[in-house]
């Protein structure tokens, strides 16, 4: 370094590769108590619920169990549990104010946010894989003990498409709500409300205003996502319903949230 050169020599420095940002964000997902216990709880519930089903199957007489029976309830639970991961990953940066350091290390904020999304997607897929691995183990055990009542009926459409797609969609939905609100409790409440309550609220409105009923399929995210479990939409109208509700519930909040994240002061 010489005093005569007032410029930074950055020619030898590579930008931070995206995979390293993903690695950092992955580490952040489990290196705090809240993050660790959330991951632990998700893993535990996904396994435990199936084991409970297995036990009840084993102690009852004359009931049948199929591979899909093990995953059914767990899948529904995963739809709302797994999205808590991106909610925590995004919002804690603001509630704990670590965003100041995060964005000083990588000033291209959109890369950090995308890295968080990538981690959420990977963890969601891991949760789905775990769900099916445990289901396979449980079915194998059931088959061993009560082979006459156990069936390996695997619905490949659900296994390879429906389950991953639905869990991923709600995970991205959680991510969108988190980006929009940047506040942990608010994001969790809004996520659960819009997932569970919106259908009921819309139905109530439709009962009062009949014209609104025609709109319902286009704006209810939950219904469209749950339909995905049985495979991709069949017709043009169904595709339209799905895409419009996705844009409304996921695209819009991500857009607004991202704009705010990229432009707001980080305090």
């Amino acid at each position, binding site marked *: *370094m*010489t*005093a005569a050169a*007032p410029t930074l020599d*950055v020619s030898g420095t590579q930008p931070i590769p995206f995979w390293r940002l993903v690695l*950092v964000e992955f*580490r952040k997902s489990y*290196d705090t108590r809240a993050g660790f216990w959330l991951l632990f709880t998700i893993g535990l519930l996904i396994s435990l619920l199936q084991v409970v089903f297995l036990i009840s199957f084993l102690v009852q007489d004359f009931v049948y169990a199929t591979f899909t029976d093990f995953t059914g309830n767990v899948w529904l639970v995963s739809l709302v549990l797994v999205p808590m991961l991106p909610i925590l990953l995004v919002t804690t940066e603001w509630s704990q104010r670590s965003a100041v350091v995060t964005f000083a290390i990588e000033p*291209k904020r959109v890369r950090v946010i995308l890295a968080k999304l990538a981690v959420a997607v990977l963890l969601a897929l891991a949760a789905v894989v775990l769900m099916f691995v445990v289901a396979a183990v449980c079915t194998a055990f059931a088959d061993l003990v009560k082979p006459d009542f156990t069936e390996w009926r695997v619905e490949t459409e659900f296994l390879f498409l429906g389950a991953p797609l639905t869990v991923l969609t709600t995970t991205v939905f959680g991510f969108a709500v988190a980006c929009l609100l940047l506040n942990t409790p608010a994001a969790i409440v809004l996520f659960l409300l819009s997932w569970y309550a919106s259908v009921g609220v819309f139905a109530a409105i439709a009962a009062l205003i009949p014209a609104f009923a025609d709109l319902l399929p286009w704006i209810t995210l939950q219904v469209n996502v749950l339909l995905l479990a049985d495979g991709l939409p069949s017709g043009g109208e169904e595709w339209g319903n799905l895409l419009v509700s996705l844009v409304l519930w996921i695209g819009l909040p991500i857009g607004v949230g991202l704009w705010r994240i990229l432009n707001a*002061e980080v305090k």
Partner: protein
Amino acid sequence: MITVDHLTKAYGSFRAVDDVSFVCRQGRVTGFLGPNGAGKTTTMRVMAGLTGATSGRVTIGGLDYSAIPNPGRHVGVLLDASAQHGGRTGREILTLGALAMGLPSARVDEMLALVGLSDVEASRRMRNYSLGMKQRLGIAHALLGDPEVLILDEPANGLDPAGIRWMRGLLKSYADRGGTVLLSSHLLNEVELIADEMILIGHGRIVAQGDKKSLLAGAQGAATSLVMSLDNTALATELAQRGHLVDPLGDGLKVNAPTEEVGRAALAAGIVLTDLRTGGVGLEDLFLELTSGTARDGAGAVPPPPPPGHGVHVPPTPNMPPVDSPLTPPGGHR
């Protein structure tokens, strides 16, 4: 190395930073000094790209912060030592930083040792840290990527006296090795011992800049004399008639005029002086005067800052007061 060029940051109609220009040079420690709310943090946040400028620009080594690839390897930033996840341990916080910057994990241990955080302390969660420990961790984080430029906002906050001395040594040797250091403080004595240059800011505006000598020299208009005579009342009247500000001080008077002026006044009035000496002007007086809420615009005998890009100093004036005068003259506060 750091160039702040006509930077303004407005919140609504309030200008937190108002047309600020200065330069931090390589191999030097630049002190950024101003009372609470003067706009130091805001200026530094703009430097690191965390706050957008309303107008004007900041470059580091000619680049916008966001244009620096892997900026942690070039610019070390400490803005708010508490702005970390309280549930992470000190070691984990540094590990995340090292991972992102692509540094070996051994660097984490090096930095922990450098800032004097023991293994036990480093494995405690940060919410249990004292302010001083957070500050040390923040300094470690800023130094992690072995940067050429350091931007530290009030790093001495919460450090014990030994810690402040340690930090002085650290920054001094860092600058001697060619680094550029900008550190802010609202306390003059934290900065004046290490800063090669000082930027004084008040109400979002630069009120003076330069090294200690030229700051004091530039402030000669504020020079004071301490005088005792056989008839202080008559002397005070005479001096007041000549347009000087006179304050009683102990058994004598404090006059806002050079000693020569006071001597002439006494001669003219025929008053016997028993003691006449320069009260000097301390940096602290200067600091308080320049940045006080009531600072009159005309009070700054300090010429306006030179244009940016130029060497930053206040031109010397013919009758310089002694620079080795005590920093705080007796009763220097008004």
